[in-house]
C-alpha cells in the first residue's frame, strides 16, 4: 500500500483541515487502546489510508478555569486520576477513570477516545454525564459547544461531523453540598469492562435529595442520564425504599443487550441494584 500516510500535526486547525481534505479512508488515533486492536486481528476490520495522530496537538492539559474544570481530549485516564484539580473538583471522574482497564491501559487511553468511541460501557463517559459535562468541538471554521449528554446519546446526527475533532471537555466544579457516588460491576475487580456502572451526583440537605443526576453505563446502546429517578428523589428524604424506587426507574429506562459478558436480563436487574446501593451509601 504505497500511499498510506501517518500524519501527526501540531496544530488543531491543521488537523481539522487534514480531516477535510484526506482522500480515502481516514482514522483518528489517540491512545490506540480501542483502535489498534482493530488493526491487529488476522482479518483487520479496515485498513486506513491515512492515520491522523492527535498526540502532537498537546491536548493533554487539565486546568481550572473559574468554576469550570477543563480537560483536554488527549488527557489519559492516568493523567485524570493523578490530577489534583480533578480529585478536588470532580472526584467522581477520578474514581471512574481509576477503574478503567489496568495501569498500562490507563497510561495510554484518553478521555476523548472514551467519549468519541461511544462504547456502551465507557466508564469515563458515564461519569462525565452525571457531572453534566459539555464539550468543545473544533473544526476548520472555529469551535462549537455541546452538552456531552446530547453528543453521546443517539441520534447520530448530534455526533461529530466530517472535519470535526473533540478539543476539550468542560465540567462544572462540584459544589460543597454536592454528594457523589460511583459503582461499577465487571466480571472481576481488576482490568474488566463494565457489565453495568452507575454514576451519581446530587445535593443533600437534612437528608433531603435535590438536583440528582444519575447516569448508567453498559445497560443501553450508549451511557444515558436517567429522566425518571431524579423526579422520584427530588425533595424526598433518602431512605432504603426511596433508593429502591429510584433504582427501579433507572432499570425501567435501561435498554441492554445480551453479550459475552452478561445477559440483558441480568444487566437490567443489576443496574437497579447498583443505583439503590449508590444512594444508600450516601445516606
Amino acid at each position, binding site marked *: 500500500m504505497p500511499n498510506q500516510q501517518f500524519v501527526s500535526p501540531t496544530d488543531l486547525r491543521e488537523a481539522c483541515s487534514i480531516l477535510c481534505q484526506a482522500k480515502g479512508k481516514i482514522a483518528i*488515533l489517540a491512545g*490506540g487502546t480501542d483502535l489498534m486492536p482493530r488493526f491487529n486481528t488476522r482479518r483487520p476490520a479496515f485498513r486506513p489510508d491515512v492515520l491522523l*495522530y492527535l498526540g502532537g496537538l498537546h491536548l493533554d492539559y487539565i486546568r481550572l478555569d473559574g468554576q469550570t474544570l477543563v480537560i483536554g481530549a488527549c488527557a489519559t485516564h492516568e493523567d485524570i486520576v493523578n490530577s489534583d484539580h480533578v480529585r478536588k473538583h470532580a472526584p467522581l471522574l477520578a474514581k471512574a477513570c481509576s477503574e478503567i482497564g489496568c495501569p498500562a491501559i490507563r497510561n495510554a487511553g484518553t478521555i476523548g477516545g472514551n467519549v468519541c468511541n461511544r462504547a456502551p460501557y465507557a466508564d469515563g463517559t458515564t461519569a462525565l454525564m452525571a457531572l453534566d459535562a459539555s464539550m468543545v468541538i473544533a473544526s476548520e471554521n472555529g469551535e462549537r459547544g455541546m452538552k456531552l449528554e446530547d453528543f453521546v446519546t443517539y441520534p447520530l446526527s448530534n455526533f461529530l461531523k466530517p472535519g470535526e475533532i473533540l478539543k476539550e471537555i468542560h465540567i462544572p466544579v462540584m459544589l460543597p453540598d454536592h454528594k457523589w457516588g460511583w459503582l461499577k460491576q465487571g466480571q472481576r475487580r481488576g482490568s474488566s469492562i463494565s457489565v453495568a456502572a452507575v454514576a451519581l451526583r446530587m445535593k443533600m440537605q437534612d437528608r433531603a435529595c435535590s438536583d440528582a443526576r444519575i447516569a448508567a453505563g453498559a445497560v443501553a446502546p450508549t451511557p444515558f442520564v436517567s429522566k425518571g429517578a431524579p423526579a422520584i428523589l427530588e425533595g424526598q428524604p433518602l431512605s432504603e425504599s426511596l433508593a429502591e424506587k429510584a433504582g427501579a426507574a433507572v432499570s425501567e429506562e435501561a435498554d441492554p443487550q445480551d453479550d459475552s459478558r452478561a445477559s440483558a436480563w441480568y444487566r437490567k436487574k443489576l443496574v437497579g441494584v447498583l443505583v439503590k446501593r449508590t444512594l444508600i451509601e450516601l445516606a
Partner: protein
Amino acid sequence: MALLEIKVNGTVHRVDVGITTNLLEVLREKLHVMSPKFGCESGDCGACSVLVNGKLRRACITNALSIQGSEVTTLEGISENGDLHPLQKQFYEKYGFQCGFCTPGMIMSAKALLDSNPNPTADEVKVALSGNLCRCTGYVPIIDAVLSAAKKPADEKG
C-alpha cells in the same frame, strides 16, 4: 511506510514501519527483542508489557509511529552487567513462574510499580499486576516475588 526512530534498551534504531504497525511487531520481528510476547494482541493479557519513556504500556496496541523518538525498555534492558535485576532474582527464588510466557510482562509491570512506589502493599501489587494474566502459577508466588524484591535495595546481591 514511514521511518521510525526509537531507542530500545539504550540503543537507537531506525526502521521502516507501516502506519498501523504496533510496537510489538517492531520489537520482535524487526529488532529481534524477544522478551515481550504476542499474546492476545488486544491489550488484555499483558504479555507484551514494556516501558515507554518510563511508563508502562502494551506494546501490542501501541502504534509504533505514535512513539516516534521515544525510549523503550524491555526485560532485556533491566539487568546490569549480566546480574539479574532484583525482580528477576526474586521471581526465580519464589518460583514466580512455570512456563514463563507471562513473566517478562509481569516483571515490567512490577518494575513500573516499584519505580514509582518502592514499598507497595500486597493490594497495591495486585492492582499493578491486574492487567497481567498467568495461566500456571495462581499468582501467589508472583505477588510474593514482587514484595520480596521491594524489600531489597537494587545494589544488594543475594
